[in-house]
C-alpha cells in the first residue's frame, strides 16, 4: 500500500523530471519561402534584357516589398523567363527549379490590364498543359497599365479556359501574386 511519504516522493520525482529549456529554440530553415520573383524580358531581335523584380526579403511581415520595373518598347517581341528565389538563405534557394520539377501541379497566369501587351505560354508540363516559367511577351502601341503574375499550386489545369491562361476556373492555392506597372513607349 502507498504511504503518504511514498506519495509525496512520487510527486517530487514527477516534478523533478521536468527540465527547463536551457537554450534558445532553433530557428526553422525556411527553405520554401519565396522572397523574390524576377521576370527577365529579352528582346527576341537582340538587345539588353530587362528585369522586373519583386523582392520581400523578410517574408510576410516586417518591411514592405521592393518592386522594380522598366519601360518596354512598343512593337517588340520579348522572350520572358521567371526565376523564383529564396534569398533569405545563402546561397539563394532556386524555387523555380522546384516548380519546374512539379510542372503538372503548378501554373503561372499572366493578366494584363489596359496596356497593349499579349503574353503567350512557351512551355508545358508532361500532360501538354502550360506551365508559364517561359513565355513570349509582345508589345503593341504606346500605352500603360499593369501586369499581374499569379502562380497557383495544385490548380485544376484541365478546367475550362485554364490551359489558355484564364485563371477563373483554376482554383488551387496562390503561391505568388505580384503586380507590376507597365509602360509601353
Amino acid at each position, binding site marked *: 500500500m502507498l504511504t503518504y511519504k511514498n506519495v509525496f516522493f512520487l510527486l517530487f520525482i514527477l516534478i523533478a523530471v521536468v527540465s527547463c529549456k536551457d537554450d534558445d529554440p532553433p530557428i526553422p530553415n525556411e527553405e520554401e519561402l519565396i522572397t523574390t520573383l524576377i521576370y527577365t524580358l529579352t528582346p527576341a531581335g537582340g538587345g539588353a534584357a530587362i528585369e522586373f523584380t519583386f523582392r520581400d526579403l523578410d517574408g510576410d511581415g516586417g518591411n514592405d516589398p521592393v518592386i522594380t520595373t522598366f519601360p518596354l518598347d512598343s512593337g517588340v517581341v520579348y522572350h520572358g523567363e521567371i526565376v523564383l528565389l529564396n534569398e533569405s538563405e545563402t546561397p539563394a534557394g532556386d*524555387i523555380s527549379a522546384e516548380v519546374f*520539377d512539379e510542372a503538372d*501541379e503548378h501554373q503561372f497566369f499572366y493578366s494584363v490590364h489596359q496596356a497593349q501587351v499579349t503574353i503567350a505560354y512557351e512551355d508545358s508540363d508532361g500532360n501538354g498543359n502550360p506551365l508559364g516559367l517561359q513565355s513570349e511577351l509582345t508589345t503593341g502601341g504606346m500605352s500603360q497599365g499593369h501586369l499581374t503574375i499569379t502562380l497557383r499550386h495544385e490548380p485544376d489545369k484541365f478546367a475550362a479556359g485554364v490551359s489558355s491562361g484564364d485563371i477563373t476556373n483554376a482554383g488551387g492555392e496562390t*503561391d505568388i501574386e505580384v503586380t507590376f506597372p507597365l509602360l509601353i513607349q
Partner: protein
Amino acid sequence: MIKQILTGTVVVCLHGLTFGQACNIQFSGRVLDQGSKEPLEYSTIAIEETNDYILADSLGQFSLRDMCPGAYHVQVFHIGCPPEQFYLRITRDTQMIFYLDHHGELLKEVVVEGAHDSFQKSRTQKSITASSIRNQAGASLADMTESVTGVRTLKNGSGITKPIIHGLYGNRVSVINNGLLQAGQQWGADHAPEIDPNTANTITVVKGSEAIEYGSSALGGAILVDVGPIKEDPHLHGFISYAYGTNGRSHTLTGMANRSSDTFGWRISGTLKKAGDQHTPDYFLTNTGYNELNGSLQLVFHPSQKTEHEVYYSLFNTQLGIFAGAFSSNLTELEEALERDVPFNINDEFSYDINPPSQKVQHHLLKYSGRRFLNPETYYEWVVGSQYDYRREYDRRRGGRADIPALDLALFTQTLQLKYVRDSERIRYKFGGQFSYSNNTNDPETGILPLIPDYERGILGAYGLAHYPLGKFELEGGARYDFQTLIAWPITLTVPREVVKTEHVYHNYAITIGGVYQPKADMVSRLQFALANRSPEPNELYSIGLHQGVASIEEGNWDLQPEISFKTIFTQSIHFEDLFHFDVSLYSHLFDGYIYLQPQDELRLTIRGAYPVYIYEQEDAWIRGLDFVVVSDFSHHVEWNIKFSWLRGTSLPDNQSLSLMPAAEVSSELSWAIKDTPLFKGSRLSIEGSYTAMQEHWDEEAELVPPPGDYFLLGLSATTGLSLHGHILNLGVTVSNLLNIRYRDYLNRLRYFSDEQGINIRLSCRYTL
C-alpha cells in the same frame, strides 16, 4: 428495523449483520424522474435473478415481500424512459429510490443541483446525461454540448467543432477532463477539444464565469466531462455500441467494461471511428474524413473505508482532413470562391482518403488521485496529473514536403492539486492549491516559422469556496489567485531571424458571490456575480502568419495586458405542477480590455498578394443575452419544448459589433412516448425544428463578406430498448437536416467556400451487458 436507503444513481452498500437471514426481506421504494424528482407512475421493476416483475403504483411506489438476502440485478422500465439496470446487495429490509431519465430534455435544461458540485448551487449549469450521450453516439464533444441553450459551435468544416458558451470560446472556455484542466492547444479556432465524449457518463456545461477550482481563465464557462464512479458490482458489466452515419459513411464503435469489488474496481473503454467525405445536398466535401482511436483505463483501490486511490489514463488520437476546396487564400481567390456554386477541388467520388491539409492530434492524460476521509463529512484529496498533447498540421507544400508538418507542437503539462473539503449540512467549504508547469515546443523541422512560439509556463494558485444555507436563502462565495510566469521565445520577422526571450509575470484572480432563493419547492432563483481576469495567452501575444486565418494575416501583440471580466447571471426556474417547466437565464458580461482581432486599415502586400491584417488588440466590450426554455409535459406521453437563445456583443467605446457572435436561435421539439410492449421498452419518437437567424449585427470593417442568411432545419429521431434475458439492447435512428436544405452558417470558418452538410441518417445500437 433499520432501513437501508439507496438511490439508483449512486449505489451505496452498507454491510450489516446478515448471517443466516431467512427469505423474509421486504424490498420497496419509488421510481422518480431524475430531472423533476416527480414519481414515474406504473413503472416496472424486474429482478433478473428471481424473474420477479413488480408494477409500481400511481405514485411510483413498489414493494416486494419475502426476498432472500443476496445480490440482484434489477431493471427498471417506464414508458418513454430508456431502461436502466442497477445492481444491489440486499441483506435486510431495503428501500430504494430509482431515478430514471424521463425528462431527458428537462434535465439537460433545468439547473442541476449539486450533482457535481454542491458548493456552487448558484451557478447556472446544465448536464447532458448518459442516455443523451448514448443517443448521440459518434458525435463530437461540441456537437453534444450544442443541445444546451446558449451553447453553439464554432466549426472549421463539419469535422472540427469547438463549443461556444454565451459567445465565448477557445482560451475563454475551459474543458475539465475527469477533474483535470485539459491542457491542449485550445487557442486555435480550428482546434477541436482533444477529448472523446462517447465514453463519458455526464457532460456538464457551466455557464457562469468560473470554474474556480481549476483556474481563473474560464471567463466564458467550462465543460466538465466525467466518466463517473465505477458502479459497485462484482460481475463484469459494460456495453458495446455501434453507430453508422450515412453522411460521410461514418462508423463508430464504442465499448466499455467494468467490474468492482469492495476494495478494487476497474473500467476500460475505447472508441474507434472512421468517416469519409461528407456531403452537402449537391456535392461531396472532398477530404473531410477523419479517423479516431481513443481509449481509457481507470483503476480504483479502496484499501480501507477511509482511503481511496485512483489511476486514470486516457488517450485521444485523431487524424482529420480539412476540406480540399478551402484555401488560406488572398482576397482575389476569396472573391473567386464566393462566386462559385460548386467549390474548387471537389471529387465526384466518395473517399475515405485524408490528404493535406490535415491534422494529426494525440492527447495523453495520466492522473493519479487519492482521497482520505477524516470523517464522513471531511476529506482531503491530492491529484498528480501529466498531459502530453502532440499536434501536427499538414499543408499542401511544394517539393514533396506535404509529408512534413507545417505546424508541429508538443505541449507537456504537469499538474499537482491538493484540496480539503468539508461537506456538512450546516456549512460546506473547500480550499485548495494547484501547481502546474507546461512546456510548449515547436519542431523546427517544419521549415516554417512557428505560428506560436516555444514557451514555458508555471502557475501557482490557491482558492477557497464556501456555502452557507440561511433558511430559504443560500449564500456562497469563492475566490482564487494565480501567480503565473510565462517565458516565451518568439522569432522575429527581421532578416536574419532572431529569437527574443521574453518574460511575463501575471497575477490572475477570480472572485464569485452568489445566492439561491427558493421560496417554494417549485420555484428557484439564482443570482451570481463573478469578477475575474485572464492574462493573454501565447497566441494572443505572439502569433504570426497566415496558416490559421482564412484570407487574412493574424498577428499577436506583445503589449497585451490581462483582460478583466465581470459577469452577472440570473436564472429563474419555475415548475407549474407537472405541466410546465420554465427556465430563463439573463446575463451581462462586461470586459475591461477584451482581447480581440482588430482589422487594420491597410492591406498588406506580400508575394502571394494583398491580405487584410488583423492584430490582437484590447477594447472594452459588453456581451449580454438570454436563454429561455419551456418544457411542457401534458401526459407523460407527449412532451413539448421550446428553446430560445439570443445574445449581442459590442465594443463599448464605438458600439461596433464583436465578430463571431452567434445569431439568435429558436428550436422546438415534440416527442411522443410509445407504450411498452413485452419486447420494446421506453420507445420514443420525436421531431425537432430549429431556426437560426441571420447575424444582422456585424462589423463591416472586420468581416470579409456579410454573414450568410437564416436557415431552418428539421430533424427526426426514434429510440427504443429491448430487454433480452436481463440485458438491454438500445436501438436508435436519428435524421438530421431531414429536408436536405442548402445553407451556410456564420460560425463556420469555411462558410466562404462550401455549404453545410446535407441530410444525415444515423443508425445506432447498443448492447448493455
